């Protein structure tokens, strides 16, 4: 059924939210700063997952959630006080729960052996003094839900059972009416079971003055002929259990003793017990035979409505502001397909270009600066920028979910390596383009693994070094000058530079006699094929090292840098653009063409002197910058704009940094300016061009190509052999 599939989808979406809520709460508990509402929220999250899972017959999920919930309930009620060990189990349980949700969603087979030990740990939490807490039985058997039910009646089974005769004595107490139950409704249900007759005993009604409108004064004797068994009859009274005196007696299905029945019968028939004979002056009990469907009789039903509405209403209203004030108002959201947002972003891009072209025309038309056209245009420019920013904000997402995933990673790696590590996060609310968030996950995961596996020392080593046994990995995000800066630092041992250097030499990545500064050595980590782990662990893996991380970051238009202090830890800092739709670039002229170089790639710009440029090989050239030689790439010839190389002294060199920390100088004719450009994909509109990342449209309507610096550099290497200088370390 379609609706069911939709609800299933809703369920898993909701699970995501609840898992995230749960994780957040557990982390707060772990930090020791969780109030009761946090614990409640965690409990509710697990409880809800269990509830929904039951409806979808996800047995393993239900059972695990159930024991987890039981443990949380004990924390909630104060029966359990969270200890660090306990929180560890809880956090691991949270991970298992996420896994189970995911496996259930994807319909994967669940192997209980995989989480048996955690399940046992969780169960053990609710075991006091070796006795498992009397857990309510899981009468939570998932039921198959068939929404295509043909009828709703709970008609008794038309089995071959013969008809029973029941005598029911039923004396409601005031609570029954106070809880909105009604005798007549119960009789209506009884009547569905078979032919019935009810007799009302109104003997208990006091004089009018003494009547309590909320009292209950009638009792009933009912005769029922039904094929239903006694349990079926009793079920009718399920909700009023404890709110009425009830006896059910049947032929051959006795529930109560004969003596009781005799007494009750006597009572029902209005024969006052011997002790009451003194009150004989009162009107004697009247037996009112009532047909199968009695008229409304409950004393309270009419009278209650007459009662003036006073204090209770106020109580309800005055209690409301309090509860509201304490709670952050839920944000209202709508779901929008990404396609629509992207289309909008595209259109806004066009608008920005169009507005730039209009500005250009106005300038060309020589309007006075104070003319209304120019002023109007400035306003338009302002508005366009605001629209652009607002639209970008739609695609922006907080890094929080990303960071949350990392905390799990830290736990797992710490567990696997026997280290004690805590992840501290800051700036989770920082927003960045969705694609950036998504594509950051992998490099960040890798770096976190490295930080725990290689950065943080084992507890013994840490204690020996005078540090706390538990290491800290800090992950922060912040907006800084139009970019997002994400920093990952650990308080571990720092980079072991002699070891890194030796390793790089062993692997033939650098010549043995190469002079390297500390930061040069740190940057060796980013070289392809570098891995310091003497024993290759299953965690950090082999080979897929920091070079991949660096490339992923650069593919996002970002930069990564590293700093480290021996004994104190390392910090990786990544700076990324907030959006992939616009780019800060430097517009340069090459052979009459305007090209855009991404600003992130440019380290500095230089005016080369003739003496600084040296030939190398047949047609290679290098440039000397502060005592190092950097390959010189003539952009004009490289891209085929002209045949003959340009004269360096008539050009400008852009010192760029590419993957692996390599530096190169790009030779261009001149620098025009620095500007933000809207990125237009070449692949979708034309095709892939080596050395070109994308295109943009300039204010004058011309198309300008955006350089792919990395590709341009490697393309140049393929064509000219620069040998050992492949790895040029710039000043």
């Amino acid at each position, binding site marked *: 059924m379609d*609706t*069911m599939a*939709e*609800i299933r989808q*809703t*369920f898993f*979406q*909701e699970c995501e939210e609840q898992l995230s809520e749960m994780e957040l709460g557990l982390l707060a508990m772990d930090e020791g700063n969780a109030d009761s509402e946090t614990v*409640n*929220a965690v*409990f*509710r999250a697990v*409880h*809800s997952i*269990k*509830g*929904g899972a*039951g*409806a979808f017959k996800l047995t393993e999920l239900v059972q695990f959630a159930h024991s987890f919930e039981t443990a949380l309930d004990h924390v909630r009620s104060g029966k359990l006080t969270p200890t660090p060990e306990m929180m560890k189990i809880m956090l691991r349980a949270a991970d298992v729960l996420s896994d189970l949700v995911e496996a259930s969603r994807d319909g994967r087979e669940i192997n209980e052996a995989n989480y048996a030990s955690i399940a046992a740990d969780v169960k053990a939490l609710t075991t006091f003094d070796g006795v498992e807490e009397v857990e*309510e039985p899981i*009468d*939570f058997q*998932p*039921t198959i*839900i*068939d*929404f295509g*039910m043909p009828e*709703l*009646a*709970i008609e008794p089974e038309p089995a071959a059972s013969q008809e029973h005769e029941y005598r029911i004595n039923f004396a409601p107490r005031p*609570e029954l009416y*106070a*809880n*909105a*139950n*009604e005798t007549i*409704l*119960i009789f209506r*249900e009884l009547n569905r079971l078979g032919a019935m007759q009810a007799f009302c005993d109104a003997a208990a009604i006091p004089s009018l003055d003494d009547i309590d409108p909320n009292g209950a004064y009638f009792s009933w004797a009912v005769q029922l002929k039904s094929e239903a068994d006694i349990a079926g009859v009793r079920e*009718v009274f*399920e*909700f009023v259990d*404890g*709110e009425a005196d009830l006896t059910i007696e049947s032929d051959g299905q006795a529930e109560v003793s004969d003596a009781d029945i005799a007494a009750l019968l006597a009572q029902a028939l209005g024969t006052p017990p011997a002790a009451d004979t003194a009150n004989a002056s009162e009107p004697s009990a009247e037996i009112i035979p009532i047909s199968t469907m009695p008229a409304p009789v409950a004393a309270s*039903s009419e009278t*209650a*409505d007459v*009662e*003036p*509405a006073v204090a*209770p*209403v106020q*109580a*309800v209203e005055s*209690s*409301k502001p309090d*509860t*509201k004030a304490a*709670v952050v108002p839920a944000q209202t959201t709508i779901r929008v397909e990404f396609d629509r947002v992207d289309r909008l972003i595209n259109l806004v891009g066009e608008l920005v270009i169009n507005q730039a072209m209009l500005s250009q025309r106005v300038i060309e038309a020589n309007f006075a600066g104070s003319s209304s056209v120019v002023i109007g245009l400035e306003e338009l420019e302002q508005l366009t920028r605001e629209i652009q920013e607002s639209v970008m904000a739609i695609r922006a997402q907080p890094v929080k979910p990303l960071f949350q995933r990392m905390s799990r990673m830290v736990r797992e790696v710490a567990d696997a390596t026997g280290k004690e590590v805590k992840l501290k996060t800051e700036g989770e609310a920082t927003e960045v383009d969705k694609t950036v968030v998504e594509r950051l996950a992998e490099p960040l995961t890798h770096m976190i693994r490295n930080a725990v596996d290689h950065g943080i020392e084992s507890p013994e080593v840490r204690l020996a070094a005078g540090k706390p046994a538990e290491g800290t990995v800090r992950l922060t995000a912040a907006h800084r000058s139009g970019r997002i800066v994400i920093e990952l630092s650990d308080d571990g041992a720092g980079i072991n530079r002699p070891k890194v250097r030796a390793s790089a030499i062993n692997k033939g990545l650098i010549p043995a006699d190469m002079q390297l500064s500390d930061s040069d050595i740190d940057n060796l980590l980013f070289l392809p094929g570098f891995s310091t782990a003497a024993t290759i662990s299953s965690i950090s893996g082999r080979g897929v090292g920091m070079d991949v991380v660096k490339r992923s970051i650069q593919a996002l238009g970002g930069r990564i840098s590293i700093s480290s202090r021996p004994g104190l830890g390392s910090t990786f800092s990544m700076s990324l653009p907030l959006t992939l739709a616009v780019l800060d670039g430097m517009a340069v002229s090459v052979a009459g063409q305007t090209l855009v170089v991404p600003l992130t790639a440019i380290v500095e710009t230089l005016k080369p002197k003739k003496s600084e440029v040296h030939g190398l090989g047949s047609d290679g050239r290098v440039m000397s910058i502060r005592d190092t030689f950097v390959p010189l790439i003539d952009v004009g010839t490289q891209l085929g704009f002209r045949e003959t190389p340009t004269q360096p002294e008539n050009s400008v060199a852009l010192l760029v940094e590419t993957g692996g920390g390599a530096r190169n100088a790009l030779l261009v004719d001149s620098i025009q300016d620095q500007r933000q450009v809207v990125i237009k994909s070449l692949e979708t509109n034309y095709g892939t061009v080596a050395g070109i990342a994308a295109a943009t449209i300039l204010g004058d309507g011309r198309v300008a190509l955006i350089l792919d610096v990395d590709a341009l550099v490697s393309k140049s290497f393929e064509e000219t052999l620069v040998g050992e200088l492949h790895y040029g370390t710039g000043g």
Partner: protein
Amino acid sequence: MTQTILTVDDSRTMRDMLKMALVEAGYNVLQAVDGVDGLDVLQASAPPDVIVTDINMPKMDGFGLIEAVRKDSRYRKVPILVLTTESDAAKKMRAKEAGATGWIVKPFEPTKLIAAIRRVAA
């Protein structure tokens, strides 16, 4: 006349399931996401024929909602069924003390849900 049921549950899944079962059975459905919202919805509409509420909810839980509803003379006679995953006697007792009319054990079968509603709805 079509009867109206107010369902109060913080879980979207559960709200959807209740709605599906109730609409199928021909009821009008009002929805609220927690106790506070439940009271707001009550204020904004004609009294429903039955209220079905979850117990564990943020802001105001099921017990709180039941108590508040019972205190208001306008809703005193509105039957309230609590949804509970446990057949936990203690929880049922607390709900009863707060003024609940009856209960539905989760996960519910639509037939059981409708039967329970029919049992308490006038």
